[in-house]
């Protein structure tokens, strides 16, 4: 931590938040709001004289409310920067008549009530998002009585309680009577692995954190009874099993089963009712103190930053990486990387590993001092552009700007364009050409495919990243499917223009399949939402003009779903067989009369 404060190449901005991100890989423009500290960071020596005279006492956030601090304070002893700060909402004010005691005692004159919030603009090439986590608040799990019973603590509160730097100087006491507890219970998976409350995912760290806490208790207070209520103990990491074994050897009891209810007895002990899965019996355990192993939730700022930067989130609310196996630290947007719990629950080792990986990925991009952009981007044909603004609306990367009011044709920022081709597919005026996947190139493929015996063919559009890869995977797995399936590769299903589908039917295709990544997995942020909308639109039109809408199918197939690909192709073949020569001829005649 102190290395960061001292590093000549690190500019540390605390009490600061990113409020806006503009630009693209290599050239981001960041707006940061730095809130006033009211104490000069560079001259404060953290002597603490100010806090001594400050009359305002408030709960201390760092000790999760178990201790207190003043309105002028240092967050904790080892804080970086070490400088004190004033919480302006709590401070009585700088009016000498009211208070200003701190100003009077500060020998170095560091305190400045006139300091104001600053707006800072930074230009950077890459961004590492390491926004971390927020511990799950177990108040809603009323059955455990957190906040109702004083001796029910969260795991973070327990950490502060046994910490030498904490409010009790590391002495484990129970809050209600300040006595040493004779027994401590831990309830696992609080806010984790639950469909109802908290998250349905495993928070990764709570098992080992409890194992660790049990060891700390047993080391300092060997006579204290420790009981852990759990569903599974996940001690999967290097050295973890050893710790777990040590914890059991030192006498910690592990009881399989999550308590159904917690009650407080007259003596302030907790009566825990649990069905022990090993015996199948309902048991009651009386414990002096109860610790809830709280799970992890994404940091509160996650969603706001996601919107500012155009990133994606998983259904759990953590950031979604570009690829879970092959690009686990990259965002889908080039130049942005994830580190730590921002991307999902992690322990310290994993966070550090991912942070180093993110740094490396950023360096890999920056070390040349310039970036090359893949030329598979869209090009505006300005003569045809009507400046309607549709392309800018659908672009997942905000790479297109159109001045709709001034009727100025669209402009593509090629550095920001990732090449999905959704704009070209959505443009009603054919004013966008998608490099390397032009209308002509794709229609040539459609026409050639359907040149001979079109009635036997299954015309399939597949996105490069998922469906086409899924087809490859079916191949690698030697899954056999009908040989009349022919794929046309596009970068994204968002590229599949209406006219490609109509061209297929006009040429006599009995069926057409559009396939792409699952919703939420699109490699172009959310371009496949447009695919979905477009296919729905074509379906409606088909019904209106009298073409069976079943003949156009939309399927999401991931790169790992070889089986799903093969099954889908069999399903397509079944639909194809239901299409008669007469039906095809009728479709062709309908389309030629439009």
């Amino acid at each position: 931590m102190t290395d960061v404060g001292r590093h000549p190449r690190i500019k540390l901005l605390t009490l600061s938040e990113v409020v806006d991100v503009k630009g693209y890989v290599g050239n981001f423009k960041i707006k940061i709001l730095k809130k006033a500290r009211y104490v000069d960071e560079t001259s404060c020596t953290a002597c603490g004289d100010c806090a001594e005279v400050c009359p305002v006492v408030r709960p201390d956030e760092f000790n999760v409310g178990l201790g207190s601090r003043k309105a002028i304070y240092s967050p904790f002893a080892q804080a970086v920067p070490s400088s004190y700060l004033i919480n302006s909402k709590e401070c009585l004010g700088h009016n000498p008549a009211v208070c200003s005691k701190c100003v009077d005692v500060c020998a170095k004159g560091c305190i400045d009530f006139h300091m104001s919030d600053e707006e800072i603009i930074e230009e950077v090439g890459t961004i590492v998002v390491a926004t971390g986590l927020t511990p799950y608040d177990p108040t809603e799990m009323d059955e455990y009585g957190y906040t109702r019973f004083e001796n029910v603590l969260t795991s973070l509160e327990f950490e502060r309680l046994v910490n030498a730097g904490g409010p009790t100087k590391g002495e484990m006491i129970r809050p209600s009577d300040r006595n040493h507890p004779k027994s401590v219970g831990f309830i696992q998976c609080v806010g984790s692995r639950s469909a109802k409350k908290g998250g349905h995912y495993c928070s990764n760290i709570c098992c080992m954190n409890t194992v660790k806490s049990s060891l700390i208790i047993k080391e300092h207070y060997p006579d204290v009874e420790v009981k852990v209520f759990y569903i599974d103990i996940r001690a999967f990491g290097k050295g973890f099993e050893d710790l777990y074994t040590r914890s059991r050897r030192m006498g910690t009891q592990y009881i399989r089963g999550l308590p159904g209810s917690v009650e407080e007895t007259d003596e302030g002990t907790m009566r825990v009712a649990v069905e022990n899965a090993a015996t199948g019996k309902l048991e009651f355990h009386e414990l002096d103190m109860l610790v809830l192993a709280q799970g992890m939730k994404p940091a509160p700022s996650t969603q706001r930053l996601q919107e500012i930067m155009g990133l994606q989130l998983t259904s759990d609310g953590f950031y979604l990486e570009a690829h879970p196996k092959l690009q686990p630290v990259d965002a889908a947007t080039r130049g942005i990387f994830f580190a730590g719990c921002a991307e999902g629950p992690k322990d310290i080792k994993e966070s550090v590993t991912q942070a180093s990986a993110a740094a490396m990925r950023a360096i890999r991009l920056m070390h040349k001092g310039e970036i090359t952009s893949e030329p598979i981007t869209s090009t505006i044909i300005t003569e045809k552009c009507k400046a309607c603004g549709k392309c800018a609306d659908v672009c997942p990367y905000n790479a297109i700007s159109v001045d709709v009011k001034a009727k100025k044709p669209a402009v593509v920022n090629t550095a920001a364009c990732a090449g999905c081709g959704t704009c070209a597919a959505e443009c009603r005026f054919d004013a966008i050409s998608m490099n390397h996947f032009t209308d002509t190139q794709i229609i040539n493929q459609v026409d050639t495919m359907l040149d001979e015996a079109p009635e036997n063919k299954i015309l399939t559009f597949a996105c490069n990243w998922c469906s086409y890869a899924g087809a490859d995977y079916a191949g690698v797995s030697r899954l056999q499917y009908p040989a009349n399936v022919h794929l046309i590769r596009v970068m994204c299903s968002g590229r599949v223009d209406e006219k490609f589908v109509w061209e297929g039917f006009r040429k006599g295709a009995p069926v057409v399949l559009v396939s792409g990544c699952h919703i939420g997995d699109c490699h172009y942020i959310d371009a496949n939402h447009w695919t979905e909308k477009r296919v729905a639109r074509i379906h409606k039109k088909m019904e209106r003009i009298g073409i069976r809408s079943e003949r156009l199918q939309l399927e999401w197939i991931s790169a790992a779903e070889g089986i799903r690909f093969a099954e889908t192709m069999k399903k397509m073949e079944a639909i194809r067989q239901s299409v008669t020569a007469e039906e095809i001829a009728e479709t062709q005649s309908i389309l030629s009369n439009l």
Partner: protein
Amino acid sequence: MSKPTPTKPSGGGDQDPRIGVYVCHCGLNIAQSVDCKRVAQKAESEKGVVLSKDIVYACSEPGQQEIKQDIIDKGLDRVVIASCSPRLHEPTFKKMIDSVGLNPYMLDMANLREQCSWVHMEDKESATQKAETLVNMSVARVRDLEPLYEETLPLTKKTLVIGGGVAGIQAALDLADSGYEVTLVEKNPSIGGVMAQIDKTFPTMDCSI
């Protein structure tokens, strides 16, 4: 390898396309269910095809050498490689044609292995017919390809790290130690994050700060 001088400028322009088609056997991977010779012969008559042949391993050194020599000798300006998935070897063949002066984007690959021979192993006739169609589709696509050029843009050698917990600290230090400027933004008054609040940390059981 020395770069042979191309006899013709790279693709595009107004002259008629000069397409070379290579149907790869991939040993027996493709050849066991696709009649590669027949596929190559069928493509010969397609518009713009100057040369069409089957080849045992297109990606091998002798295979690549043969294709490169043809590009020079026959003045090919675009190439169809009918072999494995482009997701596997497209970069290989892009480099190959680039090395003899063709624009790397003047290439298309017909996927005869993952999406044909391996998935229609029982029916050689159907697999071969499909291969013929796939190759002809590639020829039709490659006929209209245009050369593309990568653009080089300036870049700011600086990173913004959002969040000063253990991950943000590590990323900032790694970057700064490697010579890059870093701005570390933390919303709290101190860095350290949740890690700093933890007493001892597993698996080493030492303190967190």
